């Protein structure tokens, strides 16, 4: 097919070739003086005979798009062309609204992030480095205005335009609150013109970016900071005198009316972001990371619109088995399934936009999008996600479709825009043309009559042009010609005969489909030539390569080999003829049956039966209550918010990680509940979360429902930052630790009184009492809220502690303020003050035999639990360690060895006793009718090193089963092998691969760093400080 420009103005016949020539021709700004001739331009273009995609789903054939002064005037059939219109014949071409990317930082400086090589002992930066009347935290950059910083950058703009984009919402990707983004086109014009909407949206994230301030160091801290900022903003709206001018909060408040974008970059982060939004009546638009397909139901539940990147991982080079060894199945599965992410959103009916963000190179955008389409995304949905959805999200009527009144931002393409062979010829932005790839615009393919006119002779041939680079000539022979055409200039050379050495060489220009020029024949005689289009070459039927149907692995919950295909539900289970350790008055019952129904223990006795029950033979085996770990750091994204000495505002619950493999591993050791504690980096740490090990669930469903809230405190070496020789964070001694406690609770008490006073309200003239909102005047403080709960026995303390002086000092602070230290955890010198602890009413949760790893444990003894128990304390053995937690039964058994404790009492230290200290002994901790069916079936006496957990049951669901585990191992092996082969196949097929990278595991610890956790483990402190 022949495609030509037909321009009324011959001067602009080169329009297709010189894009930059036209740039800068939007109407001049009124206020700007002109040096030279103003020559104001009025432009009207008519794009005719095009297949016009006015908006996704609305296609008009043979239509005209009329553009005047940068805006669309009309789009449709039979449009009257104004006489001044410059007509561009788009016969055979497609015109689309150009794309919108809502997640760009185009035109903005990228702030330098401090290199955060982790240094736990470096001094803290306790205050913000931002000078001026701003807020306290450097990561709250609500005052940043992208519009104020925006500078057009045509080289970057071109990369976007070449991929079809015409408009971006750009913001500075830095900080937890990132200020406002601005909506700008990708035109190469003055900033004043390209900015369509100065303040189009507000942006947030969990990452503190360039902030050098210590707080927050953790995800929990970021969440707390965001929550407190929402609260502070509301409070600041009344301009409290005490605060003075706070530009950060002022800007925060101003930004609240804008759509809020949250950079989550991960499926669970999306859930966390949405939860913050829910709390403050804000529906965030969530920027995803590409793994959301793994939990699409949870994504849907957010009710959010998503911005999805297309940064699909490249195949790894896993040919070397020693490299493949360290690549996790989850990473390989994600490689395979990541391209299904947009399709999963479409299928689930979740609104989404697409972004070129996160791609290594913007130029990969369309190729990645085609991959997403190949993996199930429909073309129409893809177009929506790039046009009308983003336009609607930010409420712009300026761009997104080809409807009259919009900016003329459109693409002219050779065919349906997402098809592989389609070429984007031009990308018009605000009515100005930017060439993308015009070499095929006026396709030269076809049969031509080539006429050579020399002084001596003339000749005529049939020329078949097959492409811009190949042609052949039909003379006596069929002769392959050397041919090249760039759309304008044409070069042809050919020998006289098929094997001739000498060539006739022609050079000419393309004028509206006819070519003419000059040349030399084989003898060197000058000649003139013309070539006139005769007819199209009959197109060969395109042999469409049928792609093999996709064969993809399954999504598992959690997303690794030990996950479930579908989440399990509780069934009726009858365990028969086991030795049942009840932890109740009956003690240990030999040959007993336990019936589990609806997640509860339904009966304990002999010769039970139940219709339809799954019967498990317990002969020779032992059944115990599930193990409860009072002190654990698994299943969380961060553990320590160590930037301040009091961080009671942070909550482990905000950052649970339900996919931590250690959940499964601990189930294999009989653990059913874990108390996830904040670390010990500071005196008053964060709020803890008791979880049940419901492997496969989402973060919310991990929580132990109805359990009393707890908080972690810590004393001693860690909180005074002993390992740092440059500590500048108060306290630096145990003397100071005690005062941190006293100060915090003094503030809490005063705060509570202030709230009470402010909330009492006034009595009206008619004697009617009006209760005021106390937080209208008192700044609600999340940190103090938690401490007030402690004062009111609504939140309970578990306190990391070692030496007797600090234990006693802490209890005395409690006595002074009228609260109790519910639990002292670690408590390795508890045996020295067991009597005092008993008088105070504290529980003790300790290690069996840790000692001598730091100075404060040089008097730790393995008889500690035994002595404390004999003095009459409620004693538990805890892990604080993901490996040891799998052997807590053995850790308890060490008191049998060292202190001669009875076996039943020893088992209680990891079952009933921790249940008591966590206030959940009404639900778990013993085998009693009505309690939760959290049970372990052991192969042997559970106090023996030879005992293995064969089945671990939580809420009546068998979450770990040694038989099933064997099957999973085989499945993992098979799936790994399949994916390794598939990756290797990609490599063989010529697809570029990246070197295999070990899949690291992040492990959270309590800052006790004296044993190794394996080759692939990264310490969570290190990971979180980034």
């Amino acid at each position, binding site marked *: 097919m022949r495609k030509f420009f037909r321009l009324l103005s011959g001067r602009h016949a080169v329009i297709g070739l010189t894009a930059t020539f036209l740039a800068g021709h939007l109407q001049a700004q009124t206020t700007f003086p002109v040096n030279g001739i103003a020559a104001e331009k009025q432009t009207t273009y008519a794009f005719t005979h095009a297949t016009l995609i006015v908006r996704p789903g609305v296609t008009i054939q043979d239509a005209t798009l009329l553009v005047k002064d940068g805006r669309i005037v009309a789009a449709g059939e039979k449009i009257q062309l104004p006489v001044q219109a410059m007509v561009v014949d788009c016969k055979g071409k497609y015109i689309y609204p150009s794309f919108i990317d809502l997640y760009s930082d185009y035109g903005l400086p990228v702030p330098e992030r401090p290199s955060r090589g982790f240094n736990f002992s470096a001094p803290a930066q306790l205050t913000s480095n931002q000078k001026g009347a701003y807020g306290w935290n450097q990561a709250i950059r609500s005052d940043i205005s992208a519009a104020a910083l925006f500078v057009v950058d045509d080289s970057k703009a071109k990369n976007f335009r070449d991929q079809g984009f015409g408009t971006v919402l750009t913001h500075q990707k830095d900080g937890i609150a990132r200020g406002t983004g601005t909506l700008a086109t990708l035109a190469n014009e003055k900033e004043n013109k390209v900015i369509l909407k100065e303040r189009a949206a507000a942006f947030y994230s969990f990452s503190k970016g360039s902030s050098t301030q210590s707080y927050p160091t953790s995800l929990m801290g970021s969440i707390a900071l965001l929550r407190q900022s929402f609260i502070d903003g509301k409070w600041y709206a009344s301009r409290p005198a005490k605060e003075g001018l706070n530009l950060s909060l002022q800007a925060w408040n101003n930004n609240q009316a804008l759509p809020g974008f949250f950079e989550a970059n991960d499926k669970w982060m999306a859930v966390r972001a949405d939860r913050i939004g829910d709390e403050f009546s804000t529906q965030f638009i969530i920027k995803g990371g590409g793994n959301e397909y793994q939990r699409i139901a949870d994504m849907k539940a957010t009710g959010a619109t998503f911005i999805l990147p297309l940064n699909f991982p490249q195949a790894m080079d896993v040919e070397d088995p020693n490299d493949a060894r360290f690549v996790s199945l989850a990473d390989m599965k994600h490689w395979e399934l990541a391209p299904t992410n947009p399709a999963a959103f479409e299928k689930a009916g979740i609104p989404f936009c697409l972004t070129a963000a996160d791609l290594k190179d913007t130029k990969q955008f369309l190729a990645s999008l085609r991959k997403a389409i190949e993996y199930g995304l429909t073309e129409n949905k893809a177009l929506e996600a790039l046009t009308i959805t983003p336009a609607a999200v930010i409420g712009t009527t300026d761009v997104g479709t080809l409807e009259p009144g919009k900016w003329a931002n459109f693409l002219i393409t050779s065919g349906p825009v997402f098809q592989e062979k389609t070429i984007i010829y031009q990308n018009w932005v605000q009515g100005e043309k930017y060439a993308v790839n015009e070499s095929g615009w006026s396709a030269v393919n076809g049969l031509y009559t080539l006429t050579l006119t020399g002084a001596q002779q003339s000749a005529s041939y049939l020329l078949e042009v097959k492409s811009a680079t190949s042609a052949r000539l039909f003379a006596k022979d069929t002769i392959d010609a050397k041919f090249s055409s760039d759309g304008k200039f044409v070069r042809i050379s050919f020998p006289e005969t098929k094997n001739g050495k000498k060539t006739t060489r022609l050079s000419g220009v393309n004028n509206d489909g006819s070519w003419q020029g000059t040349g030399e024949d084989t003898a060197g005689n000058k000649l003139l030539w013309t070539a006139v289009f005769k007819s199209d070459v009959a197109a060969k039927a395109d042999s469409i390569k049928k792609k093999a149907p996709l064969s993809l692995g399954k999504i598992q919950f959690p997303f690794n080999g030990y996950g479930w295909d579908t989440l399990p539900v509780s069934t009726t289970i009858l365990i028969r003829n086991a030795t049942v350790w009840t932890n109740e008055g009956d003690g240990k019952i030999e040959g007993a049956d336990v019936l589990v129904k609806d997640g509860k223990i339904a009966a304990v006795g002999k010769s039970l039966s139940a219709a339809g029950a799954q019967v498990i033979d317990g002969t020779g085996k032992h059944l115990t209550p599930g193990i409860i770990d009072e002190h654990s750091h698994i299943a969380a994204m961060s553990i320590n918010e160590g930037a301040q000495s009091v961080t009671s505002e942070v909550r482990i619950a905000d950052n649970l990680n339900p996919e931590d493999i250690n959940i499964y591993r601990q189930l294999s050791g009989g653990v059913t509940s874990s108390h996830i504690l904040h670390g010990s980096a500071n005196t008053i740490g964060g709020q803890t979360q008791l979880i049940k090990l419901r492997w496969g669930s989402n973060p919310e469903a991990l929580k132990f429902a109805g359990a009393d809230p707890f908080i972690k405190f810590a004393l001693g070496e860690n909180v005074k930052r002993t390992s740092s020789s440059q500590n500048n964070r108060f306290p630096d001694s145990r003397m100071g630790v005690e005062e941190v406690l006293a100060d915090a609770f003094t503030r809490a008490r005063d705060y509570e009184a202030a709230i009470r006073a402010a909330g009492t309200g006034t009595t009206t003239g008619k004697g009617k009492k009006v209760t005021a909102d106390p937080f209208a005047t008192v700044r609600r403080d999340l940190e103090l809220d938690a401490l007030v709960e402690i004062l009111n026995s609504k939140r309970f303390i578990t306190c990391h502690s070692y030496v007797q002086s600090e234990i006693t000092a802490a209890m005395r602070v409690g006595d002074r303020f009228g609260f109790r230290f519910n639990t002292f955890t670690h408590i390795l010198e508890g045996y020295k003050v067991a009597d005092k602890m008993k008088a105070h009413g504290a529980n003790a949760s300790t290690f069996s035999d840790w000692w001598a790893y730091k100075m404060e444990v040089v008097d730790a003894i393995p008889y500690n639990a035994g002595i404390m128990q004999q003095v009459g304390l409620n004693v538990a053995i805890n892990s604080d360690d993901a490996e040891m937690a799998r052997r807590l039964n053995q850790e308890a*058994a060490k008191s049998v060895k060292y202190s001669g404790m009875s076996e039943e009492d020893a088992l209680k230290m990891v079952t009933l006793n921790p249940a008591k200290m966590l206030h959940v002994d009404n639900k778990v901790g013993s085998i009693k009718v009505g309690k939760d069916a959290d049970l372990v079936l052991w192969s042997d006496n559970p106090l023996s090193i030879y005992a293995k957990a064969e089945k671990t049951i939580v809420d009546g669901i068998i979450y770990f089963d040694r038989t099933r585990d064997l099957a999973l191992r085989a499945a993992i092996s098979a799936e790994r092998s399949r994916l390794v082969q598939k990756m290797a196949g990609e490599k063989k097929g010529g697809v570029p691969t990246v070197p295999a990278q070990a899949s690291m595991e992040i492990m959270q610890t309590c800052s006790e760093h004296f044993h190794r956790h394996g080759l692939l483990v990264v310490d969570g402190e290190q990971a979180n400080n980034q």
Partner: protein
Amino acid sequence: MTFSMKNIFGFLFYGLLSLSVAAQETVYPAPAYNGLLFIKNAVVHVGDGQVLDGVTIMIKGGKIEKIAKDLPIPMDDVKVFDVKGKHVYPGLILSSSVLGLVEVNAVRATADFNELGEFNPSIRSIVAYNSDSKVINTLRSNGILLAGVTPQGGLISGSSSVVQLDAWNWEDAGYKPDNGIHLNMPDLINRPNPFGDASNPPGDPLKRGMEQVDKMKAFFREAKAYAFEPAHASTNLKYEAVKGLFNKSQKLFVHADAVREMLVAVDFSKEFGMDVVIVGGSESFQIAPLLKANNIAVILSQMHSLPTATDDDVDQPYKTPAMLQQAGVLFAINDEDGQTRGRNLAFNAGTAAAYGLTKEQALQAITLNAARILGIADRTGSLEPGKDANFVVSEGDILDMRSSVITQAFIQGRLIDLTDKHKQLNERYKHKYSLK
């Protein structure tokens, strides 16, 4: 306390000992005993897989003379212990440890296991060994009587020494000084470096690691040439220190975990003809037959570990010993846990017994195998005539915390005092609370 009379019952002795409350400073190393010693009615776990029930062990001059049923016990001035119903085990051996080199991990002033520099073969751990470390006695209480004291740091850390755990000073403690040279294999895993961690610089870690390997090889080539040089114009202490590797009077202990790292270790053994032992070996199960074929022994540093990779079998570290056993690899189980300081060695072995080893195989991994690997099997590691009388008596299965209660221990025939700081503090506070 000396019991120079016949038929002192073990339980009586234990009862007396537990009453002695004194600071560890007054727990004296036992003097040499050259007389006769009989342990009768013993269930003897030989250490090589055999169990001898109801036998008598005869010890003379600190060495095992005979083990047999119904050995006649002379009426002379002999020590006799009736251990009826109890188990006798070879003294357990902690193969590789910083015992005595560090008292409290977090206190820098107490740490003497790490030296500056990459090549420190002439560094000797034994000269820093503190025989008065409070940790030592807690190990004895759990049956550990010998330890390989190992330096760390650099590429070549220095020499380890085997010590016995009842001594006045390091010279007394030396059981086999300078038994091996320790080498730390560089990391040969391609890890992502998303955190800009300074200890993990950018670039190809494999290439970087191999450069270090080349440096080490170059060192050994030079050292080997030096070793065969009849006379030296100048003395090179570093080359001198590794001479024993080339005549196999010393072993090369290569600290390595990943397969590629272990393959390099095998290459060391091939090229230099050295006796190579892998220390760490968490991935050794992957190449067990290859290790066997090349006679490479393994010290498994930490049985009680999590699996290396998410996809690994949840009990992989626990069953690794069984996989090595099956392949015929000589291996020892170690306990380098920094928070319990080695006291759980027997339970690390117990875990291996729960996951595929027999109990006697598991015992062997912390006794005879360890002795073989450390080069002391001619003198200890099993209860056999001619070997040192290094053994412990336990009320029950030593591998299981449910039953392991050590009542007596002997080093070179000397009955050692099992008091330790922990027992003393236990007594002190039982006294405070009037507990029994």
